[in-house]
């Protein structure tokens, strides 16, 4: 009898420990008080899983140099990046995870899958990994505003078509080619098609729908890792990948609910096709206001609700906003921030920006918390948000955004809307809020307007 523990058994035991740590870690990530610890636990889980795998590597020098190089580049990006560009960074890292599974599937195909099930798995893993990779790259480009191609442009249409072709070809490769003797390089075609398809998957999706796409791509990278685990008979890959897949799916659903739209509507239809039935071109009197008048009203307010949107991110106004909030508090005003789940370009975008500016998270409130007490709010300050405060969502059944949960600022005593111009929001829907009698428009760059208010307070 051989009493020495063989390496595969030792690895499997370690993988169990690692899986338990991953599960605990991701659970703790869901609570504010334990989140930092949760992230640390999952990093420990990753460390021991990778560490035990390194025992008995075939070609350690090549692999270790890969890890080292990846570690240096990854850490460099992570520590260098500005907090405001977090959305695109997350998209980029996510894409690299997808690319890794894509390469794993490719390598496994070269080994020659020995059953129908194996070969089907190889192709699905390849497709999900590939679509995650290029899709995330496009999301990265859109978020960092390097790519700006209209939904209606011919390029978008071509890539969208390729996306559907790649799905059809995937099914063909999985189910038909095993029956035939492949006479052409179908796998090479599949490799290229899924990469191009990923571009077509994300390209038509507009900026305001980005939170949904990012969460979905996040989910995909987990599913791809789990599939790679099935392929390689590796439990820790399956467990960790599934957890990511599940958490991404939950976020996707939360985002879609916050817009009152189905996921398929966001991915495949978009706002553009919802017919412009706006016979209700609600035009009316706009009441502009100057910074000094706005200051007088704010100074006498006893409760203020700040509602930030993507415009605050664009104007990089979060620090100035925090300063205004602090001055208001010193003045004895009760200040709260109303954060809509889909404000911005990724889930929780506003929370990250305000946290970066040192706003305490206990003054950040969700729509359900602020809406019931909206009538006692003296001033609601809307900073670069539009669709998430559009009263059409509650008042106008014909509106494309009808039914979307909003922050009901129109019920506050006074509403300040900080806005560059009168253009409509991402959804292309006119916002009746601007014409309400209790609304005052403060036109101009959000950051400048708020700095104006701040200096009035200081004088």
């Amino acid at each position, binding site marked *: 009898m051989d009493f020495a523990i063989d390496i595969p058994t030792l690895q499997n035991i370690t993988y169990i420990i690692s899986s338990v740590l991953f599960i605990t870690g991701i659970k703790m*990530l869901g609570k504010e008080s334990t989140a930092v610890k949760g992230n640390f636990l999952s990093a420990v889980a990753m460390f021991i899983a990778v560490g035990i*795998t390194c025992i008995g590597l075939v070609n350690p020098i090549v692999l270790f140099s*890969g890890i080292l190089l990846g570690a240096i580049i*990854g850490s460099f990006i992570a520590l260098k990046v500005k907090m405001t560009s977090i959305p695109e960074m997350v998209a980029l890292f996510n894409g690299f995870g997808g690319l890794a599974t894509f390469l794993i599937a490719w390598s496994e195909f070269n080994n020659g899958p020995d059953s129908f099930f194996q070969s089907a798995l190889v192709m699905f893993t390849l497709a999900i990994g590939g679509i995650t990779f290029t899709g995330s790259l496009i999301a990265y480009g859109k978020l960092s505003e390097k790519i700006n191609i209209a939904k209606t442009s011919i390029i978008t249409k071509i890539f969208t078509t390729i996306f559907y072709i790649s799905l059809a070809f995937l099914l063909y490769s999985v189910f038909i080619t095993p029956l035939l003797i492949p006479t052409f390089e179908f796998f090479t075609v599949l490799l290229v098609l899924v990469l191009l398809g990923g571009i077509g998957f994300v390209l038509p999706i507009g900026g305001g729908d980005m939170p949904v796409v990012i969460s979905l791509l996040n989910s995909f*990278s*987990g599913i791809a890792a789990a599939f790679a685990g099935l392929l390689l008979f590796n439990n820790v*890959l*399956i467990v960790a990948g*599934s957890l990511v897949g599940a958490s991404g799916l939950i976020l996707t659903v939360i985002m879609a609910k916050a817009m009152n739209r189905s996921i398929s509507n966001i991915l495949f239809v978009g706002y553009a096709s919802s017919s412009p039935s706006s016979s209700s071109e609600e035009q009316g009197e706009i009441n502009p206001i100057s910074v000094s008048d706005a200051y007088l009203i704010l100074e006498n307010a006893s409760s203020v609700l700040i509602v930030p949107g993507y415009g605050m991110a664009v104007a990089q106004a979060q620090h100035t906003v925090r300063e205004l909030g602090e001055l208001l508090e010193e003045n004895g005003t009760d200040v709260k921030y109303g954060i809509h789940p889909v404000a911005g370009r990724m889930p929780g975008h506003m929370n990250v920006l305000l946290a970066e500016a040192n706003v305490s998270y206990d003054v950040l409130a969700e729509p359900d918390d602020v809406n019931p007490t909206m009538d006692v709010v003296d001033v609601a300050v809307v900073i670069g948000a539009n669709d998430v405060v559009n009263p059409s969502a509650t008042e106008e059944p014909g509106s494309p955004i009808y039914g979307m949960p909003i922050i009901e600022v129109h019920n506050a005593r006074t509403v300040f809307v900080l806005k560059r111009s009168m253009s409509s929001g991402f959804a292309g829907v006119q916002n009746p809020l601007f014409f309400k009698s209790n609304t005052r428009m403060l036109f101009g760059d959000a950051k400048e307007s708020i700095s104006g208010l701040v200096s009035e307070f200081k004088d």
Partner: protein
Amino acid sequence: MLLGFVLILSIYLGLELISKVPSTLHTPLMSGANAISGIALVGALVLSQDGQLQTTLAFLAVFFASINVFGGYLVTNRMLKMFKKK
């Protein structure tokens, strides 16, 4: 078959674990989960390396998964450190 079992149970477990997340944590959760998807690194390490192409694929897979792992955890940690109560 057993692996399929593990897959289904883990997905179910994940859905149960994370169903209620405060919106403050949406981004950190996403970014933390993203780091975990770098577990593909473990898969990349055990790929076969017969021949030039396979070695290159393995190296690249390890490289990109490592970027995902290190970048993901560090960004998440940086982000979480910013969230504080006064």
